[in-house]
């Protein structure tokens, strides 16, 4: 034990002395520019090559590159930039430009560009559409690196000439499609707004007119109907419910003649597939070309950088033609520099030049902040139409209403901002009054119950030891848990809007609990969410406890062989990181390729209905959770004295009677703490919902915790509203634990 202690102390000491990862920069006169990105593979290598070349070419600036997992990138930027610990520049898709500009994450670069020598005319360097993508309210926010848009890939062995019109496309596709053999003429992600958008533009639709969303127009409905003919169950040319990775496999196996995908698809195609690329077709009905959404990736300038001029200089250098050439050659990027496409080897490359032509036939994704609000509602409209839950018109009307709701909420934020007062004064006032009242109540109590108060202080003095023992834990918990907790609680009384908070009292709570915006059966309604969450928690617990206990009872059998092996294998779900197994489970429920439909001979689209989608989450979480219950039950069973069973046997009790009257009653106290903890964990189980059903259909299987997350990050940054949700979750669980505490104490009569 002492050796162990010494080791622990030594370890802690080395950790404190651990040199900070940053090298000492002070004596160096070089300016360090920090560049963050989330590229990987070839794109990452190409970017690093350009940075290395740049660092070698001059002495005054050194660029430091950091690659961050895509999943954590945006949240890391949101945490770091406001505190000045972020990058100087970073690479991101342009669709966040407007959002980040108003939320003070990025700043315009025009004024710095003017101060630099030799910045050639940007309009002649970059394609105008990519520049347009980076312009928000007439100011330029970055320099483009690449553009990405969908185009039509085709297998040359199966298709001689790519289609020019949608009618041709359908005829070609029909020729190849054999549904029974899983062969399809055309494959793309039908249910995704991003992949559907080309048809909308092809029929002449728009998303916004000024600040207003226009999603229920005739063009939108026609696009939906067009999509519907593609997946027509009687004569489909496109499979529904296909995900990205399945498209890759189908194309590589020669089971998909045409695929609509983007430049990222290039690196996934097997070398032995002979393929070509063509523009998306002209829609025969309208005579207009289907236009995909154009995304530009760009260097953006952090709002809090200390060295904006040097940072813009780096941006300018890394987007110049020589750097673009490296990125094109090494990273196979479709770069935004015009000059690259004049080079003979690029000109003759059918793939690259087609992407360039497609770009000219694409619509830059609107970069206004409210663009982010239409993705999820539109995905829902698509799902409803695909699954025949709704007509195109009805689905679009619903989508339009949802988006209008979000925009109204944004306008409320704007109104608060226009008022100019953030209400912090009122907030402090209210808090002071609250604390004052509390203090008065405490003093009054102390005076009235004098004896009790005296005893209280005496107890404290006598147990000073105990406080010493818990002090380190309380301090670290205070720091890491309670301070953030208090912060989050106070957020619930505010409205976040464009990087500022406005005090609005208990409005968030009223909006949630009285559900003004969303009446009961609505998926966003609080009480509906509560019902789903309770159903989720209860069903999970019942199943995991039952399965865990049953397995424990079997594995307890002393004469059974290979117990150790079973036990070891059955614990595996607990040991493997759940973020990968959850993804595998999602794959297992796939309608076409999933093992579950296959084994049971079903053909269910699991995420089309609330009930079945709920089951997918349930299966995954039970799989993750039963090993814990099994281990707990094993331990509890071992502690039951065997003479009890022997006595029962002598008395002639059956197996069932033994279980009912000995095992169960003695297990209860052992299982209870685990069950309470497990309830709390399941209630707040975010990962499974987020990764498996993803809330489908339309948020119907989201539980309270994932709902809070969506309000914070997917529906217009309503942090206050999300915080209020979190507090309500907290109170529900608190109440639950109090009640169970009482109940168990009551039934056992042996409370401590």
């Amino acid at each position, binding site marked *: *034990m002492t050796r162990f202690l010494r080791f622990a102390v030594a*370890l802690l000491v080395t*950790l404190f002395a651990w040199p900070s990862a940053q090298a000492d920069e002070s004596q160096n006169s070089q300016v360090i520019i920090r560049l963050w990105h*989330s590229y*990987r593979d070839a794109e990452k290598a190409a970017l690093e090559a350009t940075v290395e070349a740049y660092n070698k070419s001059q002495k005054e600036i050194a660029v430091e590159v*950091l690659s961050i*997992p*895509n*999943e954590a990138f945006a*949240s890391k930027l949101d*945490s*770091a930039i406001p*505190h000045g*610990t972020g990058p100087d520049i970073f690479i991101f898709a342009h669709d966040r430009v407007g959002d980040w500009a108003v939320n003070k994450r990025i700043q315009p670069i025009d004024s710095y560009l003017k101060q630099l020598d030799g910045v050639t005319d940007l309009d002649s360097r970059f394609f105008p559409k990519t520049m347009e993508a980076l312009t928000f309210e007439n100011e330029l926010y970055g320099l483009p690196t690449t553009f990405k848009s969908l185009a039509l890939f085709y297998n040359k062995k199966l298709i001689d000439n790519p289609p020019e019109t949608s009618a041709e496309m359908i005829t070609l596709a029909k020729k190849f499609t054999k549904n029974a053999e899983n062969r399809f003429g055309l494959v793309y992600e039908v249910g995704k707004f991003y992949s559907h958008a080309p048809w909308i533009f092809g029929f002449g639709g728009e998303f916004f007119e000024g600040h207003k969303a226009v999603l229920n127009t005739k063009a939108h409905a026609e696009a939906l109907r067009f999509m519907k003919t593609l997946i027509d169950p009687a004569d489909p040319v496109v499979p529904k419910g296909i995900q*990205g*990775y*399945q498209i*890759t*496999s189908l194309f590589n196996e020669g089971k998909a003649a045409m695929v609509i995908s983007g430049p990222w698809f290039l690196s996934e195609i097997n070398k032995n597939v002979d393929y070509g690329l063509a523009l998306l077709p002209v829609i025969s009905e309208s005579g207009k070309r289907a236009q995909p959404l154009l995304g530009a990736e760009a260097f953006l300038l952090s709002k809090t950088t200390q060295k904006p001029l040097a940072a813009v200089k780096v941006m300018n250098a890394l987007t110049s033609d020589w750097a673009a050439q490296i990125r094109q050659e090494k990273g196979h990027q479709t770069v935004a520099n015009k000059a690259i496409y004049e080079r003979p080897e690029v000109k003759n490359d059918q793939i690259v030049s087609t992407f360039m032509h497609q770009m000219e036939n694409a619509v830059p994704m609107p970069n206004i902040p409210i663009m982010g609000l239409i993705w999820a509602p539109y995905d829902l409209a698509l799902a409803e139409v695909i699954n025949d839950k709704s007509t195109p018109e009805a689905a679009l009307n619903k989508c339009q209403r949802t988006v209008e709701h979000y925009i109204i909420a944004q306008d409320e934020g704007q109104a608060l901002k226009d008022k100019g007062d953030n209400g912090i004064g009122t907030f402090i006032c209210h808090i002071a009054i609250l604390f004052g009242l509390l203090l008065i109540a405490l003093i009054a109590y102390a005076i009235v119950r004098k004896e009790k108060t005296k005893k209280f202080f005496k107890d*404290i003095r006598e147990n000073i030891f*105990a406080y010493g*023992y*818990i002090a*380190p*834990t309380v301090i670290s*918990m205070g720091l*890491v848990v309670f*301070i*953030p*907790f208090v912060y989050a609680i106070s957020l619930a009384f505010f409205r976040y809007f464009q990087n500022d908070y406005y005090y609005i009292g208990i409005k968030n709570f009223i909006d949630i609990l009285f559900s003004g915006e969303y009446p009961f059966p609505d998926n966003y309604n609080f009480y509906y969410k509560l019902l789903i969450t309770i159903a989720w928690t209860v069903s999970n617990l019942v199943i995991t406890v039952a399965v865990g206990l049953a397995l424990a009872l*079997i594995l307890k059998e002393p004469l*059974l062989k290979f117990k150790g092996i079973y*036990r*070891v*294998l*059955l614990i595996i*779900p607990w*040991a*493997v990181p*759940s973020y990968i*197994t959850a993804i595998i*489970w999602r794959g*297992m429920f796939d309608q076409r390729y999933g093992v579950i439909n296959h*084994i049971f001979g079903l053909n269910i689209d699991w995420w089309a209905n609330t009930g079945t989608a709920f089951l997918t989450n349930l299966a995954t979480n039970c799989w993750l959770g039963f090993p814990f219950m099994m*281990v707990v*039950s094993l*331990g*509890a069973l071992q*502690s039951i004295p065997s003479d009890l069973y022997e006595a029962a046997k002598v008395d002639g009790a059956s197996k069932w009677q033994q279980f009912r009257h000995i095992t169960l009653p003695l297990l209860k106290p*052992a299982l209870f*703490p685990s069950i309470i903890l497990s309830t709390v*964990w399941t*209630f*707040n189980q975010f990962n499974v919902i987020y990764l498996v059903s993803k809330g489908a259909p339309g948020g119907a299987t989201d539980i309270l*915790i994932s709902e809070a997350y969506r309000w*914070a990050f997917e529906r217009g940054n309503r942090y206050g509203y999300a915080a209020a949700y979190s507090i309500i979750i*907290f109170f529900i*669980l608190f109440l639950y*634990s109090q009640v169970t505490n009482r109940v168990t104490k009551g039934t056992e009569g042996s409370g*401590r």
Partner: protein
Amino acid sequence: MNKQKVKFIFVHIFLICFTFITIFPVLKVVQIALGTSNNFNLSVNPFPTEFSLKNFKEVLTSSKNIKVEKVITNDKGEETKITEDKEVWLFGRQLFNSLVVSIATALMGILLACTAAYAFSRFKFPGQRAGLMAFLVTQMFPGTMMMIPLYIIIEKLGLLDQMLGLILVYSTTSIPFCVWNLKGYFDTIPKELEEAAIIDGASHFRVFWQIVMPLCKPALAVTFLFSFMTGWNEFILAATFMSNETSYTLPVMLQQFIGEYSVDWGHFAAGALIVSIPVMALFFALQRNLVSGLTAGAVKG
């Protein structure tokens, strides 16, 4: 006896089926990891069809050039600083980071949880019940809302980009479960043992350290495992607090295979298996303790 045998055969058949279902998703991960393409194998068959170690090799041997400053002294004794590129074994660094962070998290978690749990178990003091409740209560507040304040605190403490920052956060988040579990275990240890020692003149601390601790090894093993896993599997905080590829932990490396548009399935699966190995090894090593350490506390007999 014969009847018994037949029964056991059925039990085995059931267990084999159930185990197969249980490890099915994991087999799928193995299959993808052993494949040669980065595609997702769409077949229903979960068994490996190829046996290529390419993905494992590439994950294990990842490297990166970093700049190292070197001071060179010439004949006249003048010092010049030069920076030169040095190739470092990235996976090795990240494995090291993960090990240090997780082990330190586990040790710190044990240290903090033990002392607190002991106090909760042995003393009756004002705030005891409320304090214990407060620990449980922290599990009830969704973590997503705490990210930004947590970042501010770590930044103010100067612990950004340092392992200690991660260790502090991880060990604290794992405390509540550990305290509850350990307290239950301490409750089963008869108080008389300690009282006797105190009469013999041992200090409170000595009683705790030399009598109580050795008796609760199983519970300590569980606590170790839980805190270790908290540090071992987490990636969002690690990716947010650390700003250097050489200071990332393994789960962050793993997440880097998931791009915005596409996923590098082969490497992701291989990486996930590599990352799971130490945890599985720990599970197997601590198996016996796990069974008694998790529950013995709660059964007071």
